[in-house]
């Protein structure tokens, strides 16, 4: 049809699809799934870091941490808005999350037992997120691409802050250095898993790449990320916990140990360290806040009626 042709042309031209443009139903569904998953990840992702807001060891770090978690809430809001342009309501997305029907990034099912995790999350998790997300700034769906531009800017700021936390620890006392290394040991592999399964086992990737929602394969992005980490780890003085990790001149890529994909599958299946905690906290915040949201809605209605009468 003419619509389909026009859609294909826009994609072909690396131009943007906008909310009022026609789009294939599968494209819409894929985007809703991906954007809402991304939004949920920002929201659930607040939890592991909020764990240290009340215990942050200096006022400067407390402020930086609050600002970071606040940014995540903000990212969640932009992304929910972007998803809403595709015709799904925020309440519906939230229900899907609470019912376990919508996913969020598995990385947030890990715990943050130590302050150093505030550094490792910034350096590794936000670092991996950036590698994943920078290409999304050119995503074919306009509202998503534009949200990602804003988000990526802030994420790279977060990554630098995480690096600084680790750097401060690595230049500190033996206990602080140990704390930093332990945290890197715990977060390194989960952060590599953030790029998703190896290319030959990633079923949705081909279509997403054709639609220019996605622009690089999982393994390409993972390689790029590791390449970025290696010199930074040296600068920090931390050891990346992979004895096989080294540059392969021939392949022009890093050799690495095989990733433990059963771990990935376990967390995905709900058996990660913190899946139950994360969902409980979200549900309780939502339920405890119900009376507040109802009050705000009722008040807004009354005000609108008054204005209508006046």
């Amino acid at each position, binding site marked *: 049809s003419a619509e389909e042709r026009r859609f294909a042309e826009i994609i072909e031209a690396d131009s943007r699809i906008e909310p009022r443009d026609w789009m294939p139903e599968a494209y819409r569904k894929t985007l809703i799934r991906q954007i809402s998953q991304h939004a949920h990840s920002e929201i659930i992702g607040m939890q592991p870091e909020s764990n240290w807001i*009340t215990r942050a*060891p200096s*006022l400067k770090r407390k402020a930086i941490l609050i600002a970071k978690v606040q940014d995540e809430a903000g990212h969640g809001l932009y992304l929910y808005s972007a998803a809403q342009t595709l015709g799904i309501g925020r309440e519906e997305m939230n229900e899907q999350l609470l019912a376990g029907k919508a996913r969020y990034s598995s990385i947030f099912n890990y715990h943050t037992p130590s302050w150093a995790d505030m550094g490792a999350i910034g350096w590794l998790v936000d670092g991996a997120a950036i590698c994943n997300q920078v290409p999304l700034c050119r995503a074919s769906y306009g509202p998503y691409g534009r949200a990602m531009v804003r988000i990526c800017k802030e994420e790279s700021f977060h990554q630098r802050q995480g690096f600084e936390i680790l750097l401060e620890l690595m230049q500190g006392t033996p206990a602080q250095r140990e704390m930093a290394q332990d945290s890197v040991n715990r977060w390194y592999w989960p952060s590599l898993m953030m790029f998703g399964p190896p290319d030959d086992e990633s079923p949705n990737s081909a279509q997403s790449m054709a639609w220019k929602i996605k622009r690089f394969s999982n393994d390409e992005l993972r390689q790029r990320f590791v390449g970025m980490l290696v010199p930074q780890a040296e600068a920090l003085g931390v050891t990346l916990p992979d004895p096989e990790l080294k540059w392969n001149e021939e392949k022009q890529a890093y050799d690495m140990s095989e990733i433990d994909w059963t771990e990935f599958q376990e967390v995905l299946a709900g058996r990660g360290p913190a899946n139950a905690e994360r969902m409980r906290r979200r549900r309780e*915040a939502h339920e*405890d806040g119900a009376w*507040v949201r109802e*009050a705000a809605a009722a008040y807004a209605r*009354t005000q609108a009626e008054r204005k209508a009468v006046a």
Partner: protein
Amino acid sequence: SEEAAEYAMRLGDDALVLAQRLGAWISRAPEIEEDVALANIALDLIGHARSLLHYAGTASGRSEDDLAYFRDEPEFRSAWLFEQPNGDFGHTIARQLVAAVYLFELYGRLTASADPTLAAIAAKAVKEVDYHRDHAVQWVLRLAGGTEESRRRMIVALADIWPYVDELFRDDELHDALGEAAVRPSTLREPFDAAIAAVFAEAGLDEPRTSIARGGGRRGIHTEHLGPMLAEMQVLARAHPGASW
């Protein structure tokens, strides 16, 4: 001067304790927009606390973090209002209403302080607490004018918080000693009452008639809420004395 340091410590502790309380909301708020708003307010308050405690510490060679993390409960100078528990969202809003209206009046006048450091800190802070005030007022209106349940909760929360209003407006020798460098708390009572009366009138609320809590925060006497809060706030810093973060 030592007096200016003590005065800055009082204001700094008020801000720090309230920021710590608000920080505990983040990722638990009734809606994401409120996670953002409460984080914003907490951030502003930590900013004020840092400036004020930095200034308070210069006289005695202590850093903002020495003061925040290595003082014990009897050395904290915050008023009782700020350490009151978060309770439900209504309690947090009631506490915010009192805190923000008070701080707005205070910082507004402190911009004219004879102490240039305090004046500069106040000039920045007053714009921020103006936003905090607006945030609290809007929520008081929404909760009081929302549902029956929200109105009931708002009234209970205001009654629970009101005993802690009086302490904020008490003068003592420190204000005598500081003269034009400080603001006499008693002079803020009238504008505070007027601002609150306007909010209550719009919200259709009566001013709570409650007892007046004794207070004593300015002399290091606190309610039973501060101790456990400090235990959590200070635990990591104290486990690594001398470390830098």
